[in-house]
């Protein structure tokens, strides 16, 4: 079975441009997470989707960041008017929603975003 996939793997953009990052979770996983990891740093939680519930957006750093998850599967993270400090690796993870609430997260390979 396929794991979590993310595209593009690398994205270089100019300051002020908008970017879209895509995540395809593992089929059947109801929970989806976005994180940001700056060079050599820990994980910064951005947003969490669980089934049809309202997403937990508490980690989004500014209103330039938004995310959606269509049909309970694919998710897109959008960064508007990118800034140099947005440069980081953006990680997506998914986990199953089998009724238990402690299933491990499966991570994608990440999208490395560079804002010039």
């Amino acid at each position, binding site marked *: 079975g396929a794991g979590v996939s993310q595209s593009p793997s690398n994205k270089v953009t100019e300051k002020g441009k908008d970017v879209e990052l895509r995540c395809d979770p593992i089929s059947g996983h109801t*929970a989806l*997470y976005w994180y940001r990891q700056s060079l050599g*740093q*820990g*994980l910064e*939680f951005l947003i*969490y989707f*669980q089934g049809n*519930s309202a997403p*937990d957006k508490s980690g989004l750093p500014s209103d330039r960041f938004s995310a959606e998850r269509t049909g309970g599967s694919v998710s897109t993270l959008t960064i508007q008017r990118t800034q140099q400090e947005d440069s980081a690796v953006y*990680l997506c*993870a998914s*986990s199953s929603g089998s009724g238990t*609430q*402690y*299933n*491990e*997260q*499966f*991570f*994608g*390979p*990440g999208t490395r975003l560079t804002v010039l």
Partner: protein
Amino acid sequence: AQSVAQPEDQVNVAEGNPLTVKCTYSVSGNPYLFWYVQYPNRGLQFLLKYITGDNLVKGSYGFEAEFNKSQTSFHLKKPSALVSDSALYFCAVRDPHAGNNRKLIWGLGTSLAVNP
């Protein structure tokens, strides 16, 4: 407030020696605890988790971790380190009272270097 601490930014150990990567947490009640590993230029991978039961949890690649409620710790251990264990290790905790929100609280990571 819920939190996770990895008190050591870096751990150095000689190959063949036992290794310990420390993690302490602050969560009300009995936590769900996780260890993840990030190898160079690779995605995050799940290592092991503690939910309930035996305090000693065994995971992938010969790693184990011991849940210590009185010390609120969940240290990662391996009896004999390999050079290939060199990676970034993350501890994470989930508040069991968080309802349907499966969001994890992540430590900042510990860089493990195993020297030949």
